[in-house]
Protein backbone atom coordinates (compact mmCIF):
# COMPACT_ATOMS: atom_id res chain seq x y z
CA UNK A 1 0.00 0.00 0.00
CA UNK A 2 2.95 2.25 0.68
CA UNK A 3 4.28 1.68 -2.84
CA UNK A 4 1.31 1.86 -5.22
CA UNK A 5 3.45 0.82 -8.19
CA UNK A 6 4.56 -2.36 -6.44
CA UNK A 7 1.00 -3.13 -5.46
CA UNK A 8 -0.12 -2.87 -9.07
CA UNK A 9 2.79 -4.98 -10.31
CA UNK A 10 1.96 -7.72 -7.81
CA UNK A 11 -1.64 -7.69 -8.91
CA UNK A 12 -0.71 -7.93 -12.56
CA UNK A 13 1.76 -10.72 -11.75
CA UNK A 14 -0.95 -12.63 -9.91
CA UNK A 15 -3.29 -12.44 -12.88
CA UNK A 16 -0.58 -13.54 -15.31
CA UNK A 17 0.35 -16.39 -12.95
CA UNK A 18 -3.26 -17.53 -12.69
CA UNK A 19 -3.62 -17.50 -16.46
CA UNK A 20 -0.45 -19.53 -16.86
CA UNK A 21 -1.64 -21.99 -14.22
CA UNK A 22 -4.96 -22.25 -16.08
CA UNK A 23 -3.18 -23.02 -19.36
CA UNK A 24 -1.02 -25.68 -17.70
CA UNK A 25 -4.09 -27.16 -15.99
CA UNK A 26 -5.96 -27.35 -19.27
CA UNK A 27 -3.05 -28.90 -21.16
CA UNK A 28 -2.31 -31.52 -18.54
CA UNK A 29 -5.94 -32.54 -18.40
CA UNK A 30 -6.28 -31.40 -14.79
CA UNK A 31 -8.96 -28.82 -15.50
CA UNK A 32 -11.53 -31.30 -16.88
CA UNK A 33 -10.76 -33.50 -13.88
CA UNK A 34 -11.38 -30.64 -11.46
CA UNK A 35 -14.57 -29.68 -13.26
CA UNK A 36 -15.85 -33.23 -12.98
CA UNK A 37 -16.34 -32.42 -9.29
CA UNK A 38 -18.48 -29.36 -10.17
CA UNK A 39 -21.54 -30.58 -8.29
CA UNK A 40 -19.51 -31.19 -5.13
CA UNK A 41 -17.76 -27.84 -5.50
CA UNK A 42 -21.10 -26.02 -5.61
CA UNK A 43 -22.60 -27.90 -2.70
CA UNK A 44 -19.52 -27.82 -0.46
CA UNK A 45 -18.68 -24.27 -1.54
CA UNK A 46 -22.07 -23.11 -0.32
CA UNK A 47 -21.44 -24.90 2.98
CA UNK A 48 -18.02 -23.28 3.14
CA UNK A 49 -19.43 -19.78 2.62
CA UNK A 50 -22.13 -20.50 5.15
CA UNK A 51 -19.52 -21.42 7.77
CA UNK A 52 -17.55 -18.24 7.00
CA UNK A 53 -20.60 -15.99 7.16
CA UNK A 54 -21.94 -17.44 10.41
CA UNK A 55 -18.64 -17.59 12.30
CA UNK A 56 -17.30 -14.33 10.80
CA UNK A 57 -20.57 -12.47 11.35
CA UNK A 58 -20.68 -13.59 14.97
CA UNK A 59 -17.03 -12.64 15.39
CA UNK A 60 -17.70 -9.10 14.10
CA UNK A 61 -20.87 -8.84 16.16
CA UNK A 62 -19.00 -9.76 19.35
CA UNK A 63 -15.47 -8.54 18.57
CA UNK A 64 -16.21 -4.91 17.74
CA UNK A 65 -18.37 -4.23 20.81
CA UNK A 66 -15.85 -6.09 22.97
CA UNK A 67 -13.01 -3.98 21.59
CA UNK A 68 -15.04 -0.83 22.24
CA UNK A 69 -15.87 -1.86 25.79
CA UNK A 70 -12.19 -2.47 26.51
CA UNK A 71 -11.39 1.15 25.59
CA UNK A 72 -13.88 2.61 28.06
CA UNK A 73 -12.42 4.41 31.01
CA UNK A 74 -13.64 2.00 33.65
CA UNK A 75 -12.07 -0.92 31.78
CA UNK A 76 -8.64 0.69 31.49
CA UNK A 77 -7.16 -1.47 34.25
CA UNK A 78 -8.15 -4.83 32.84
CA UNK A 79 -8.00 -3.94 29.13
CA UNK A 80 -4.28 -4.49 28.69
CA UNK A 81 -4.39 -7.91 30.33
CA UNK A 82 -7.32 -8.93 28.14
CA UNK A 83 -5.44 -7.84 25.03
CA UNK A 84 -2.42 -9.83 26.22
CA UNK A 85 -4.60 -12.92 26.45
CA UNK A 86 -6.02 -12.16 22.99
CA UNK A 87 -2.53 -11.89 21.53
CA UNK A 88 -1.56 -15.13 23.23
CA UNK A 89 -4.67 -16.84 21.83
CA UNK A 90 -3.59 -15.83 18.35
CA UNK A 91 -0.40 -17.87 18.69
CA UNK A 92 -2.29 -21.15 19.24
CA UNK A 93 -2.41 -23.09 15.94
CA UNK A 94 -5.82 -23.21 14.30
CA UNK A 95 -5.83 -26.97 14.29
CA UNK A 96 -5.30 -27.00 18.05
CA UNK A 97 -8.26 -24.64 18.51
CA UNK A 98 -10.42 -26.99 16.43
CA UNK A 99 -9.25 -29.96 18.43
CA UNK A 100 -9.96 -28.19 21.71
CA UNK A 101 -13.39 -27.19 20.47
CA UNK A 102 -14.16 -30.76 19.47
CA UNK A 103 -13.05 -32.10 22.83
CA UNK A 104 -15.61 -29.85 24.50
CA UNK A 105 -18.47 -29.63 22.02
CA UNK A 106 -18.11 -32.88 20.10
CA UNK A 107 -18.20 -33.09 16.32
CA UNK A 108 -20.39 -31.33 13.77
CA UNK A 109 -21.14 -27.83 12.57
CA UNK A 110 -21.54 -26.17 15.96
CA UNK A 111 -18.04 -26.90 17.32
CA UNK A 112 -16.60 -25.95 13.94
CA UNK A 113 -18.39 -22.61 13.96
CA UNK A 114 -17.35 -22.05 17.56
CA UNK A 115 -13.67 -22.64 16.83
CA UNK A 116 -13.76 -20.46 13.70
CA UNK A 117 -15.58 -17.74 15.62
CA UNK A 118 -13.07 -17.78 18.44
CA UNK A 119 -10.13 -17.60 16.08
CA UNK A 120 -11.65 -14.74 14.03
CA UNK A 121 -12.58 -12.84 17.14
CA UNK A 122 -9.03 -12.07 18.14
CA UNK A 123 -7.85 -9.77 15.31
CA UNK A 124 -11.16 -7.93 15.39
CA UNK A 125 -11.01 -7.23 19.13
CA UNK A 126 -7.37 -6.22 18.94
CA UNK A 127 -7.78 -3.85 16.01
CA UNK A 128 -10.93 -2.26 17.40
CA UNK A 129 -9.21 -1.67 20.71
CA UNK A 130 -6.03 -0.27 19.20
CA UNK A 131 -7.87 1.72 16.55
CA UNK A 132 -9.87 3.58 19.15
CA UNK A 133 -6.92 4.04 21.51
CA UNK A 134 -4.81 5.54 18.73
CA UNK A 135 -7.24 8.44 18.26
CA UNK A 136 -5.61 11.79 18.99
CA UNK A 137 -6.57 12.74 22.56
CA UNK A 138 -6.90 16.38 21.44
CA UNK A 139 -9.77 15.36 19.20
CA UNK A 140 -11.54 13.71 22.11
CA UNK A 141 -10.92 16.75 24.30
CA UNK A 142 -12.44 18.97 21.62
CA UNK A 143 -15.46 16.66 21.37
CA UNK A 144 -15.93 16.63 25.11
CA UNK A 145 -15.36 20.36 25.40
CA UNK A 146 -18.04 21.04 22.82
CA UNK A 147 -20.57 19.13 24.87
CA UNK A 148 -20.77 15.68 23.27
CA UNK A 149 -22.06 12.91 25.47
CA UNK A 150 -19.92 9.76 25.72
CA UNK A 151 -22.28 7.91 23.39
CA UNK A 152 -22.15 10.73 20.83
CA UNK A 153 -18.37 10.78 21.05
CA UNK A 154 -18.28 7.05 20.36
CA UNK A 155 -20.54 7.14 17.31
CA UNK A 156 -19.53 10.48 15.82
CA UNK A 157 -15.82 10.60 16.60
CA UNK A 158 -14.26 7.42 17.92
CA UNK A 159 -15.79 4.76 15.66
CA UNK A 160 -15.55 6.72 12.39
CA UNK A 161 -11.93 7.58 13.06
CA UNK A 162 -11.01 4.03 14.04
CA UNK A 163 -13.08 2.51 11.24
CA UNK A 164 -10.21 1.96 8.85
CA UNK A 165 -8.20 0.03 11.43
CA UNK A 166 -11.28 -1.90 12.54
CA UNK A 167 -12.07 -2.96 8.98
CA UNK A 168 -8.44 -3.97 8.49
CA UNK A 169 -8.86 -6.29 11.49
CA UNK A 170 -12.09 -7.70 10.09
CA UNK A 171 -10.38 -8.28 6.77
CA UNK A 172 -7.53 -10.18 8.38
CA UNK A 173 -9.96 -12.22 10.44
CA UNK A 174 -12.21 -13.18 7.54
CA UNK A 175 -9.35 -14.12 5.22
CA UNK A 176 -7.85 -16.35 7.91
CA UNK A 177 -11.33 -17.71 8.51
CA UNK A 178 -11.82 -18.71 4.85
CA UNK A 179 -8.45 -20.44 4.89
CA UNK A 180 -9.23 -22.24 8.15
CA UNK A 181 -12.68 -23.55 7.19
CA UNK A 182 -11.20 -26.55 5.26
CA UNK A 183 -9.81 -27.79 8.60
CA UNK A 184 -13.36 -27.75 9.95
CA UNK A 185 -13.97 -30.86 7.87
CA UNK A 186 -11.72 -32.71 10.31
CA UNK A 187 -14.28 -32.24 13.09
CA UNK A 188 -17.25 -32.82 10.85
CA UNK A 189 -17.94 -29.23 9.92
CA UNK A 190 -18.21 -29.77 6.17
CA UNK A 191 -17.01 -27.31 3.56
CA UNK A 192 -14.48 -27.54 0.74
CA UNK A 193 -12.07 -29.28 3.11
CA UNK A 194 -13.95 -32.46 2.34
CA UNK A 195 -12.63 -32.41 -1.26
CA UNK A 196 -9.13 -31.42 -0.17
CA UNK A 197 -8.65 -34.01 2.53
CA UNK A 198 -10.39 -36.78 0.63
CA UNK A 199 -8.25 -35.91 -2.40
CA UNK A 200 -5.11 -36.13 -0.31
CA UNK A 201 -6.11 -39.46 1.20
CA UNK A 202 -6.95 -40.94 -2.20
CA UNK A 203 -3.91 -39.35 -3.83
CA UNK A 204 -6.42 -37.79 -6.25
CA UNK A 205 -4.87 -34.51 -7.37
CA UNK A 206 -7.97 -33.43 -9.29
CA UNK A 207 -10.25 -33.83 -6.29
CA UNK A 208 -7.74 -32.10 -4.03
CA UNK A 209 -7.48 -29.13 -6.36
CA UNK A 210 -11.27 -29.08 -6.77
CA UNK A 211 -11.28 -28.14 -3.07
CA UNK A 212 -8.13 -26.07 -2.91
CA UNK A 213 -8.61 -23.80 -5.92
CA UNK A 214 -12.14 -22.64 -5.01
CA UNK A 215 -10.96 -22.08 -1.42
CA UNK A 216 -8.15 -19.88 -2.65
CA UNK A 217 -10.46 -18.04 -5.04
CA UNK A 218 -12.99 -17.52 -2.29
CA UNK A 219 -10.34 -15.99 -0.04
CA UNK A 220 -9.17 -13.66 -2.80
CA UNK A 221 -12.71 -12.58 -3.72
CA UNK A 222 -13.80 -11.97 -0.14
CA UNK A 223 -10.62 -10.03 0.59
CA UNK A 224 -11.27 -7.97 -2.53
CA UNK A 225 -14.86 -7.27 -1.51
CA UNK A 226 -13.81 -6.23 1.99
CA UNK A 227 -11.10 -4.04 0.48
CA UNK A 228 -13.70 -2.33 -1.66
CA UNK A 229 -15.89 -1.98 1.41
CA UNK A 230 -13.04 -0.25 3.25
CA UNK A 231 -12.31 1.96 0.26
CA UNK A 232 -15.86 3.21 -0.19
CA UNK A 233 -17.22 2.74 3.32
CA UNK A 234 -14.61 4.67 5.32
CA UNK A 235 -15.08 8.48 5.20
CA UNK A 236 -12.66 10.17 2.83
CA UNK A 237 -11.18 12.31 5.60
CA UNK A 238 -9.82 9.30 7.49
CA UNK A 239 -9.22 6.95 4.59
CA UNK A 240 -5.52 6.68 3.75
CA UNK A 241 -6.42 5.10 0.39
CA UNK A 242 -8.41 8.09 -0.84
Amino acid at each position, binding site marked *: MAIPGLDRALRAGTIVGLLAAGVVAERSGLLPEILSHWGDILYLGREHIYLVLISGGLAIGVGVPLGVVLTRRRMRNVAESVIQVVNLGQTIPTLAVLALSMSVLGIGTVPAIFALWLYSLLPIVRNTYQGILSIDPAMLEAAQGMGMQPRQMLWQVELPNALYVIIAGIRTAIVINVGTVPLAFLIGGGGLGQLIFTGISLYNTGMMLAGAVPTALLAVVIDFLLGMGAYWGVPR*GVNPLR
Partner: protein
Amino acid sequence: MIRLENLSKTFDSPEGTVRAVDNVTMEVPEGEVAVLLGPSGCGKTTTMKMVNRLVQPTSGKIYIDDKDTDSYDAIQLRRQLGYVIQQIGLFPNMTVEQNISVVPRLLGWSRQAQQTRARELMRMVALDERLLSRFPKELSGGQQQRVGVARALAADPPVLLMDEPFGAIDPINREVIQDEFLKMQAKLKKTIMFVSHDIDEAVKMGDKIAIFRDGRLEQYDDPDMLLSQPANPFIADFVGGDRELKRMRLTRVSAAMDPDAPTVQADDSVANARAIMDQAGRAHAVVVDAANRPMGLLTDRQLDGEPGRLCRDAANPLPEPVTADRDLRTAVSSMFTHDVDWMPVVDADGCFAGVVTQDGIRGVLAESRRRPARQGAA
Protein backbone atom coordinates in the same frame (compact mmCIF):
# COMPACT_ATOMS: atom_id res chain seq x y z
CA MET B 1 -18.99 37.91 32.20
CA ILE B 2 -16.98 35.15 33.82
CA ARG B 3 -16.24 35.35 37.52
CA LEU B 4 -13.99 32.97 39.42
CA GLU B 5 -14.22 32.97 43.19
CA ASN B 6 -11.56 31.33 45.35
CA LEU B 7 -11.10 28.67 42.75
CA SER B 8 -8.73 25.84 43.71
CA LYS B 9 -7.77 22.52 42.24
CA THR B 10 -5.59 19.96 43.95
CA PHE B 11 -4.33 16.73 42.44
CA ASP B 12 -3.01 13.75 44.33
CA SER B 13 0.35 12.64 43.04
CA PRO B 14 2.92 10.17 44.36
CA GLU B 15 4.86 13.10 45.87
CA GLY B 16 1.82 14.25 47.78
CA THR B 17 -0.92 16.74 47.05
CA VAL B 18 -0.25 19.26 44.31
CA ARG B 19 -2.10 22.55 44.27
CA ALA B 20 -2.47 23.12 40.54
CA VAL B 21 -4.70 26.14 41.02
CA ASP B 22 -4.56 27.97 44.31
CA ASN B 23 -7.40 30.21 45.42
CA VAL B 24 -7.85 32.20 42.22
CA THR B 25 -10.35 35.03 42.15
CA MET B 26 -10.80 37.07 39.01
CA GLU B 27 -13.43 38.47 36.71
CA VAL B 28 -13.51 38.70 32.93
CA PRO B 29 -15.79 41.64 32.12
CA GLU B 30 -18.49 41.32 29.47
CA GLY B 31 -17.12 41.62 25.96
CA GLU B 32 -13.46 41.65 26.95
CA VAL B 33 -10.52 39.36 26.35
CA ALA B 34 -8.64 38.18 29.43
CA VAL B 35 -5.38 36.41 28.69
CA LEU B 36 -4.19 33.86 31.25
CA LEU B 37 -0.43 34.00 30.96
CA GLY B 38 2.39 32.13 32.60
CA PRO B 39 5.05 29.47 32.22
CA SER B 40 3.95 25.91 31.57
CA GLY B 41 2.56 24.17 34.61
CA CYS B 42 1.43 27.43 36.20
CA GLY B 43 -2.23 26.39 36.30
CA LYS B 44 -3.58 28.62 33.55
CA THR B 45 -4.98 25.80 31.43
CA THR B 46 -6.38 24.00 34.44
CA THR B 47 -8.10 27.21 35.47
CA MET B 48 -9.70 27.50 32.07
CA LYS B 49 -10.75 23.88 31.94
CA MET B 50 -12.59 24.33 35.20
CA VAL B 51 -14.82 26.89 33.51
CA ASN B 52 -16.26 24.29 31.13
CA ARG B 53 -15.88 21.59 33.77
CA LEU B 54 -13.43 19.45 31.85
CA VAL B 55 -11.69 19.67 35.21
CA GLN B 56 -13.82 19.62 38.32
CA PRO B 57 -12.78 22.31 40.85
CA THR B 58 -11.72 21.12 44.29
CA SER B 59 -13.23 24.23 45.82
CA GLY B 60 -14.48 27.62 44.77
CA LYS B 61 -17.17 28.90 42.46
CA ILE B 62 -17.43 29.93 38.83
CA TYR B 63 -20.16 32.27 37.66
CA ILE B 64 -21.06 33.00 34.08
CA ASP B 65 -23.33 36.05 33.82
CA ASP B 66 -23.88 35.77 37.58
CA LYS B 67 -25.15 32.22 37.26
CA ASP B 68 -23.30 29.53 39.19
CA THR B 69 -21.99 27.01 36.65
CA ASP B 70 -22.61 24.21 39.13
CA SER B 71 -26.31 24.73 38.51
CA TYR B 72 -25.87 23.60 34.88
CA ASP B 73 -25.52 20.08 33.61
CA ALA B 74 -21.89 19.87 32.43
CA ILE B 75 -22.90 18.81 28.91
CA GLN B 76 -25.41 21.64 28.55
CA LEU B 77 -22.88 24.11 29.94
CA ARG B 78 -20.21 23.14 27.41
CA ARG B 79 -22.61 23.58 24.51
CA GLN B 80 -23.00 27.20 25.57
CA LEU B 81 -19.28 27.91 25.72
CA GLY B 82 -17.17 28.09 22.58
CA TYR B 83 -13.97 26.08 22.95
CA VAL B 84 -10.83 26.32 20.83
CA ILE B 85 -7.70 24.28 21.57
CA GLN B 86 -4.14 24.51 20.35
CA GLN B 87 -4.19 21.18 18.52
CA ILE B 88 -7.38 22.42 16.85
CA GLY B 89 -9.00 19.01 17.27
CA LEU B 90 -11.04 19.07 14.08
CA PHE B 91 -12.70 15.74 13.41
CA PRO B 92 -10.93 14.24 10.38
CA ASN B 93 -13.90 12.02 9.52
CA MET B 94 -16.16 15.03 9.04
CA THR B 95 -16.13 17.67 6.33
CA VAL B 96 -15.45 21.27 7.25
CA GLU B 97 -19.18 21.93 7.20
CA GLN B 98 -19.93 18.98 9.48
CA ASN B 99 -17.17 20.10 11.83
CA ILE B 100 -18.57 23.61 12.05
CA SER B 101 -22.07 22.31 12.60
CA VAL B 102 -21.23 19.99 15.50
CA VAL B 103 -22.65 22.14 18.28
CA PRO B 104 -25.70 23.35 16.29
CA ARG B 105 -26.41 19.70 15.52
CA LEU B 106 -26.06 18.75 19.18
CA LEU B 107 -28.45 21.59 20.00
CA GLY B 108 -30.93 20.24 17.47
CA TRP B 109 -30.95 23.10 14.96
CA SER B 110 -32.72 22.48 11.67
CA ARG B 111 -30.53 21.41 8.77
CA GLN B 112 -31.39 24.63 6.98
CA ALA B 113 -30.28 26.75 9.94
CA GLN B 114 -27.04 24.78 10.22
CA GLN B 115 -26.20 25.34 6.57
CA THR B 116 -26.94 29.05 6.68
CA ARG B 117 -24.87 29.44 9.82
CA ALA B 118 -21.92 27.49 8.37
CA ARG B 119 -21.79 29.83 5.35
CA GLU B 120 -22.04 32.89 7.56
CA LEU B 121 -19.17 31.63 9.71
CA MET B 122 -16.95 30.91 6.73
CA ARG B 123 -17.34 34.52 5.64
CA MET B 124 -16.61 35.65 9.18
CA VAL B 125 -13.30 33.78 9.35
CA ALA B 126 -12.38 34.79 5.79
CA LEU B 127 -12.51 31.32 4.24
CA ASP B 128 -13.89 30.37 0.87
CA GLU B 129 -17.31 28.70 1.06
CA ARG B 130 -16.11 26.04 -1.33
CA LEU B 131 -13.92 24.64 1.46
CA LEU B 132 -17.07 23.53 3.29
CA SER B 133 -17.11 20.20 1.49
CA ARG B 134 -13.40 19.54 2.07
CA PHE B 135 -11.97 17.38 4.81
CA PRO B 136 -9.62 18.84 7.45
CA LYS B 137 -6.57 17.03 6.07
CA GLU B 138 -7.08 18.91 2.82
CA LEU B 139 -6.63 22.30 4.50
CA SER B 140 -3.50 24.18 5.54
CA GLY B 141 -2.72 24.65 9.24
CA GLY B 142 -3.94 28.24 9.19
CA GLN B 143 -7.17 27.29 7.45
CA GLN B 144 -7.72 24.50 9.96
CA GLN B 145 -7.37 26.89 12.87
CA ARG B 146 -9.86 29.29 11.27
CA VAL B 147 -12.29 26.41 10.97
CA GLY B 148 -11.57 25.67 14.64
CA VAL B 149 -12.53 29.23 15.55
CA ALA B 150 -15.62 29.09 13.31
CA ARG B 151 -16.65 25.86 14.99
CA ALA B 152 -16.37 27.44 18.42
CA LEU B 153 -18.50 30.37 17.30
CA ALA B 154 -21.12 28.20 15.61
CA ALA B 155 -23.90 28.43 18.15
CA ASP B 156 -23.04 32.07 18.88
CA PRO B 157 -21.96 31.44 22.48
CA PRO B 158 -21.51 34.56 24.62
CA VAL B 159 -18.33 33.13 26.11
CA LEU B 160 -15.30 31.70 24.35
CA LEU B 161 -12.54 29.64 25.94
CA MET B 162 -9.38 29.58 23.87
CA ASP B 163 -6.44 27.41 24.89
CA GLU B 164 -3.36 28.69 23.03
CA PRO B 165 -5.49 28.79 19.89
CA PHE B 166 -2.80 30.18 17.61
CA GLY B 167 0.14 28.33 19.16
CA ALA B 168 0.53 25.77 16.40
CA ILE B 169 0.55 28.23 13.51
CA ASP B 170 3.72 29.61 11.94
CA PRO B 171 4.63 33.15 13.08
CA ILE B 172 3.61 34.94 9.89
CA ASN B 173 0.19 33.35 9.65
CA ARG B 174 -0.24 33.74 13.38
CA GLU B 175 0.03 37.54 13.11
CA VAL B 176 -2.53 37.54 10.31
CA ILE B 177 -4.99 35.34 12.19
CA GLN B 178 -4.53 37.34 15.39
CA ASP B 179 -5.31 40.56 13.52
CA GLU B 180 -8.37 39.05 11.90
CA PHE B 181 -9.51 37.66 15.19
CA LEU B 182 -9.20 41.07 16.85
CA LYS B 183 -11.26 42.61 14.05
CA MET B 184 -13.88 39.93 14.50
CA GLN B 185 -13.90 40.40 18.25
CA ALA B 186 -14.39 44.16 17.84
CA LYS B 187 -17.70 43.33 16.17
CA LEU B 188 -18.77 40.25 18.14
CA LYS B 189 -17.80 41.45 21.63
CA LYS B 190 -17.54 37.97 23.09
CA THR B 191 -16.34 37.45 26.63
CA ILE B 192 -13.13 35.53 26.09
CA MET B 193 -10.76 33.63 28.33
CA PHE B 194 -7.57 33.11 26.37
CA VAL B 195 -4.64 31.00 27.54
CA SER B 196 -1.19 31.88 26.24
CA HIS B 197 2.44 31.52 27.21
CA ASP B 198 3.56 34.28 24.89
CA ILE B 199 3.77 37.76 26.40
CA ASP B 200 3.67 39.41 22.97
CA GLU B 201 0.48 37.60 22.08
CA ALA B 202 -1.01 38.47 25.46
CA VAL B 203 -0.20 42.16 25.07
CA LYS B 204 -1.68 42.12 21.60
CA MET B 205 -4.86 40.15 22.27
CA GLY B 206 -5.70 40.98 25.87
CA ASP B 207 -7.85 43.72 27.31
CA LYS B 208 -6.57 42.31 30.56
CA ILE B 209 -3.77 39.94 31.41
CA ALA B 210 -3.66 37.53 34.34
CA ILE B 211 -0.20 36.30 35.22
CA PHE B 212 -0.05 32.91 36.89
CA ARG B 213 2.75 31.27 38.79
CA ASP B 214 2.58 27.94 40.61
CA GLY B 215 -1.20 27.99 40.52
CA ARG B 216 -1.51 31.47 41.98
CA LEU B 217 -2.74 34.57 40.22
CA GLU B 218 0.16 37.01 40.61
CA GLN B 219 -1.23 40.06 38.87
CA TYR B 220 -4.40 40.82 36.93
CA ASP B 221 -4.28 44.11 35.12
CA ASP B 222 -4.55 45.80 31.78
CA PRO B 223 -1.49 45.23 29.60
CA ASP B 224 -0.09 48.73 29.98
CA MET B 225 -0.22 48.62 33.77
CA LEU B 226 1.30 45.17 33.78
CA LEU B 227 4.19 46.31 31.63
CA SER B 228 4.72 49.66 33.32
CA GLN B 229 4.19 48.54 36.91
CA PRO B 230 4.85 44.83 37.31
CA ALA B 231 3.80 43.86 40.82
CA ASN B 232 6.90 41.83 41.64
CA PRO B 233 10.28 40.78 40.25
CA PHE B 234 8.88 37.53 38.83
CA ILE B 235 6.40 39.41 36.67
CA ALA B 236 8.98 42.00 35.67
CA ASP B 237 11.21 39.16 34.61
CA PHE B 238 8.43 37.31 32.83
CA VAL B 239 7.26 40.28 30.80
CA GLY B 240 10.85 40.88 29.81
CA GLY B 241 13.54 43.55 30.00
CA ASP B 242 12.17 45.17 26.88
CA ARG B 243 8.79 45.78 28.44
CA GLU B 244 8.84 49.51 27.64
CA LEU B 245 9.22 48.57 23.98
CA LYS B 246 6.24 46.25 24.34
CA ARG B 247 4.24 49.08 25.88
CA MET B 248 4.82 51.07 22.75
CA ARG B 249 2.72 48.55 20.87
CA LEU B 250 -0.20 49.41 23.08
CA THR B 251 -0.29 53.12 22.36
CA ARG B 252 -1.34 54.65 19.08
CA VAL B 253 0.66 57.42 17.51
CA SER B 254 -2.39 59.68 17.82
CA ALA B 255 -2.10 59.55 21.60
CA ALA B 256 1.48 60.81 21.60
CA MET B 257 1.35 63.30 18.76
CA ASP B 258 1.16 67.06 18.94
CA PRO B 259 -1.90 68.00 16.90
CA ASP B 260 -1.23 71.75 17.23
CA ALA B 261 1.98 71.80 15.19
CA PRO B 262 1.76 74.79 12.86
CA THR B 263 1.30 74.29 9.13
CA VAL B 264 1.76 76.61 6.22
CA GLN B 265 0.37 76.31 2.71
CA ALA B 266 2.80 75.45 -0.07
CA ASP B 267 2.04 78.61 -2.01
CA ASP B 268 2.20 80.90 1.02
CA SER B 269 5.04 83.34 1.16
CA VAL B 270 7.90 82.87 3.58
CA ALA B 271 6.91 86.09 5.31
CA ASN B 272 3.49 84.67 5.98
CA ALA B 273 5.05 81.50 7.33
CA ARG B 274 7.14 83.52 9.75
CA ALA B 275 4.03 85.17 11.09
CA ILE B 276 2.35 81.81 11.65
CA MET B 277 5.40 80.35 13.37
CA ASP B 278 5.85 83.38 15.59
CA GLN B 279 2.24 83.20 16.58
CA ALA B 280 2.51 79.51 17.46
CA GLY B 281 5.84 80.11 19.16
CA ARG B 282 7.54 77.31 17.22
CA ALA B 283 10.76 77.11 15.30
CA HIS B 284 9.33 74.67 12.72
CA ALA B 285 6.33 74.52 10.47
CA VAL B 286 5.14 71.75 8.17
CA VAL B 287 4.40 72.75 4.62
CA VAL B 288 1.19 71.20 3.31
CA ASP B 289 -0.30 71.17 -0.16
CA ALA B 290 -3.84 72.16 -1.12
CA ALA B 291 -5.18 68.75 -0.01
CA ASN B 292 -3.50 69.21 3.40
CA ARG B 293 -0.89 66.55 2.66
CA PRO B 294 2.53 67.22 4.26
CA MET B 295 5.21 67.90 1.69
CA GLY B 296 8.08 69.73 3.37
CA LEU B 297 9.52 71.37 6.46
CA LEU B 298 10.36 74.97 7.16
CA THR B 299 12.69 75.96 9.98
CA ASP B 300 13.18 79.53 11.07
CA ARG B 301 16.65 79.52 9.57
CA GLN B 302 15.23 79.10 6.08
CA LEU B 303 12.99 82.08 6.55
CA ASP B 304 15.88 84.51 6.18
CA GLY B 305 16.41 86.05 2.81
CA GLU B 306 13.82 86.96 0.25
CA PRO B 307 10.44 87.35 2.09
CA GLY B 308 8.40 86.88 -1.09
CA ARG B 309 9.73 83.37 -1.75
CA LEU B 310 7.10 80.63 -1.68
CA CYS B 311 7.24 78.10 1.15
CA ARG B 312 7.23 75.33 -1.47
CA ASP B 313 10.64 76.47 -2.68
CA ALA B 314 12.15 77.20 0.71
CA ALA B 315 11.06 73.91 2.34
CA ASN B 316 13.41 71.09 3.28
CA PRO B 317 12.47 67.50 2.60
CA LEU B 318 10.29 65.90 5.22
CA PRO B 319 10.84 62.60 7.05
CA GLU B 320 8.52 59.78 5.94
CA PRO B 321 5.14 60.40 7.65
CA VAL B 322 3.57 57.82 9.99
CA THR B 323 -0.14 57.05 10.12
CA ALA B 324 -1.98 58.11 13.28
CA ASP B 325 -3.49 54.68 14.00
CA ARG B 326 -0.16 52.85 13.95
CA ASP B 327 1.43 51.98 17.29
CA LEU B 328 4.32 53.87 18.81
CA ARG B 329 6.69 51.02 18.17
CA THR B 330 6.23 51.44 14.43
CA ALA B 331 6.82 55.16 14.75
CA VAL B 332 9.98 54.75 16.81
CA SER B 333 11.31 52.07 14.52
CA SER B 334 10.73 54.32 11.57
CA MET B 335 12.48 57.20 13.36
CA PHE B 336 15.55 55.04 13.93
CA THR B 337 15.44 53.85 10.34
CA HIS B 338 15.49 57.39 9.02
CA ASP B 339 17.68 58.74 11.81
CA VAL B 340 15.27 61.51 12.82
CA ASP B 341 13.76 62.42 16.19
CA TRP B 342 10.38 63.52 14.94
CA MET B 343 7.96 62.66 12.16
CA PRO B 344 4.83 64.14 10.68
CA VAL B 345 1.64 62.18 11.39
CA VAL B 346 -1.04 61.71 8.77
CA ASP B 347 -4.55 60.29 8.99
CA ALA B 348 -5.84 57.39 6.92
CA ASP B 349 -6.34 59.68 3.90
CA GLY B 350 -2.80 61.02 4.04
CA CYS B 351 -3.85 64.41 5.41
CA PHE B 352 -1.61 66.08 7.98
CA ALA B 353 -2.69 65.36 11.57
CA GLY B 354 0.23 66.52 13.71
CA VAL B 355 3.79 65.63 14.56
CA VAL B 356 5.21 63.00 16.89
CA THR B 357 8.56 63.45 18.58
CA GLN B 358 10.77 61.16 20.65
CA ASP B 359 10.26 63.52 23.57
CA GLY B 360 6.51 63.26 23.14
CA ILE B 361 6.68 59.46 23.18
CA ARG B 362 8.87 59.50 26.29
CA GLY B 363 6.32 61.75 27.92
CA VAL B 364 3.41 59.42 27.18
CA LEU B 365 5.27 56.38 28.50
CA ALA B 366 6.36 58.21 31.63
CA GLU B 367 2.89 59.53 32.29
CA SER B 368 1.24 56.12 32.60
CA ARG B 369 4.19 54.89 34.62
CA ARG B 370 3.25 57.48 37.21
CA ARG B 371 -0.39 56.38 37.38
CA PRO B 372 -1.24 54.90 40.78
CA ALA B 373 -0.98 51.14 40.75
CA ARG B 374 -4.33 49.41 41.16
CA GLN B 375 -4.83 46.40 43.34
CA GLY B 376 -4.39 43.79 40.63
CA ALA B 377 -4.34 40.31 42.02
CA ALA B 378 -6.82 39.48 44.71
